[in-house]
């Protein structure tokens, strides 16, 4: 297992170097931040002066060498827009995202697991139809629209919850529902289909013949096996949500990583963009590594196969 983890970590390092290089060069193809920082009537001289101040006047390969040599020392540079170290900005926003994403995940799992299991057990029944409808709605409903509707109903009309922004417990309710709805739908359908496959398998039939209770069959034998594809999806969603909850963060004025990435792209803030993508890549790698380790825990066959 240790060898496996080390191997994955080494692959991760190579991937990070590749990602950094690609982002560094591709980012610069999209325009110069000086153009976006200056007013419309700035002169060529103003522009040149700003480019020099931002350190963008050197040839691109020299800029890359400087960036890499600083990066290996842990210095990813200062944001052009915020004029503060990018690492500092990233870590000031990360906790905000890490508060909302797990909340949405918990909501999704709490709803999806029982509904998915019940749908599979009562295939074609009322619960199955109901959860199917929920799934279709959850997947088809755009996040931003759901967020706006929730704000209109629960904040503007009923006055029960705040419209936006971070704060106490009540501030988490609407963003969590908005972010979690899509996840509920995805998880639920996956659990249902996995459960259906497993309920029909030979080892489940054997367990039933042996006289095991239905609860043991479902919760111990079926669910544990059904969770393997769910875990894969969890890894994908988790990585995607940490870096890409842009819509929810925008609608609810939540200062997280998704919005930071969006701003870095829009304002051509190269150092920030490089840092955010590098950190995001690192996070996704760690999440995937965690998922791989959990695989081995849930399914001993994976461990044995190695």
């Amino acid at each position, binding site marked *: 297992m240790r060898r496996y983890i080390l191997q994955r970590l080494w692959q991760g390092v190579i991937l990070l170097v590749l990602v950094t290089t690609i982002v560094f060069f591709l980012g610069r193809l*999209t*325009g*110069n931040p000086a*153009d*976006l*920082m*200056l*007013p*419309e*009537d*700035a*002169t*060529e*001289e*103003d*522009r*040149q*002066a*700003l480019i*020099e*101040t*931002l350190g963008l006047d050197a040839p691109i390969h020299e800029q890359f060498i400087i960036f890499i040599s600083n990066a290996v020392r842990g210095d990813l540079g200062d*944001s052009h*827009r*915020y*004029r*503060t170290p990018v690492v500092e*900005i990233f870590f*000031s*926003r990360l906790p905000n995202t890490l508060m909302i994403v797990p909340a949405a995940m918990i909501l999704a799992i709490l709803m999806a697991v029982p509904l998915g299991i019940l749908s599979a057990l009562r295939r074609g029944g009322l619960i199955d139809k109901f959860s199917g409808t929920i799934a279709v709605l959850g997947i088809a409903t755009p996040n*931003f629209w759901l967020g*706006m509707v929730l*704000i*209109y109903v629960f*904040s*503007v009309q009923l*006055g029960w919850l*705040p*419209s*936006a*922004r*971070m704060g106490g417990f009540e501030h988490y309710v609407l963003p969590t529902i908005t972010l979690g709805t899509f996840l509920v739908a995805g998880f639920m359908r996956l659990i249902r289909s996995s459960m259906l496959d497993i309920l029909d398998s030979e080892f489940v039939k054997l367990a039933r013949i042996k006289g095991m209770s239905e609860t043991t069959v479902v919760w111990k034998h079926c669910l544990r096996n059904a969770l393997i594809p769910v875990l894969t999806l969890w890894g994908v969603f988790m990585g995607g949500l940490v870096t890409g909850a842009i819509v929810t963060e*925008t*609608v*609810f*004025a939540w*200062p997280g990583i998704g*919005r*930071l990435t969006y701003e870095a792209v*829009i*304002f*051509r803030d190269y150092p920030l963009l490089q840092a955010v993508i590098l950190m995001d890549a690192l996070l996704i790698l760690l999440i995937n590594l965690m998922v791989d380790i959990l695989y081995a825990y849930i399914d001993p066959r994976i461990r044995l196969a190695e």
Partner: protein
Amino acid sequence: MKHRGLILGGLFSILLTFIFLMPPAAAAQKGTLVVALDSLGGQNMDPILEGRASHAHFQAPMYDSLVGFNFEKGGIGPGVAERWELAKDGLSWTFFIRKGQKWHNGDPLTAHDVKFSLERTMSKESVASRSAALRRNVKNIEVIDDHTVRINTNGVQVHFPASMSRAVFQEGQMMPKKYIEKVGAAEFRKNPIGSGPWKFVKSVPGDRVEYEAVDYPHWRGKPSFKRMHILLVPEESTRVAMVRTGEAAIASISPEAIKEVEAAKLKMISVPATMQAVYYLWGTYRPDQKDNPVADIRVRQALSLAIDRQQIIDHVMNGKASLPMPFATFGYSVDTDTERWREWTRKAFRYDPKRAKELLTEAGYPNGFDLKFANTALPGTPYMVQIGLTVADFWSKIGVNIKYKHYEWGAFRALRRGQKELKGAASMYRTAGRPIAVARYTSGFMSKSLSHLFGNTKKGMNLCDELCQSFDKLSLEVVQARDPGVRAERTNRMIEMVANSWVAVPIIEGMGYWAINPKIVGAFNPIPGRHEFGDVFERMPRADQKAWR
């Protein structure tokens, strides 16, 4: 019992004394003014680290500017300096500093702070939008006494005082010399102090900036609220919802939200003349474009006549916009014959598709022609895209075959530099409301400018015909004319030259739009031409102080 009466009487007298001595409750500072904005720029609290317009939202409350605003008409007025004068030789400006001003730590604001602030803004470290221009224009700065400072300029700079006002740019913002020298720049950025009517409390990046009102009289006005929070809320419907629920008192909005705001019985403020939506026709002077239809002035005029501006005002801008004046010219523009130009635009910007067709026929294009059209929206004005689409539709109606392409603003600005893809094409553009038109003209039309719409003499190019040469000469005369009469005459000639070229044509004069919760904020007037409220917050009463009519 006798004593009890005396004691009660005494207590009653003391109570009465307190009641009479205490200021009326309405006059006391209380509550929190919460403002929801679509952008906080880089949210830098150090004036030399912020280069874009949002500084006028969140820096303006705490920093004063050397030159201020004319609050009634728009344009410039007294600021930290109560007056200023040009030397007889035209090579220096003397600013007379208002007495009794102080920094938030109690230190007095003097001419030494003015010199320090301008030199800091001119430093290499500064990314303030016009720091390079300041370096170019200022020779040196002399402190004459604590309340007088002289700025020696390189050549005559007649518009220099205007550039020290937030009505034009941000470079005139004052910073505390003693404090910065004592604590250093890094500490100043974390805990800045200014001299404005609001004191800095806290900045949470990507979320908010918090302030506390000063409790002494300030020349800009003493705030009615005790505290102020400026929040970053990027989504417009969320901002409106926050105003409706009272979570925010004020929010910036776009024309699309006007109907929703009115339906919700919120107060809507439209700040007049904050911008012009315009279209440009690029590279019409170039020899390789001589066969391009837009090289013909009749075609260019036809394109303007084909646009029904009133329809755009009524339907895209929900009635909250007006017919524009010539390029970058507003009712408050200095050295400008506004009456003459209002009259001119009434005729010139009429909707006359019949005449447009006739002009196209005269120019040899009775069946229209192909025209590339680059649509884009500048930050803060997303409705420009819709205006651009409507303009394209109007042009199609007179037979112009539009080759439409939309550009994200950053991509468009990059495109503008080389102009290869824009040769002979039309594009959307916007010019912000500023009282000095000449800066927009020089950056748009001079042959060495970024846009160089009349000709190009950059990097060894020699594409500058008679119109281009005349414009270059005239624009230099405008910025150096010390006699106000001569300056006004030259300015109006410059406006005329551009207006008659039909190369940069205004579509509408836009406004700044704000949704206000009238139960929290009372009636106030914005500064004409200034969308941002950073210089207005202290003039906002609470609802209990002054109700809206």
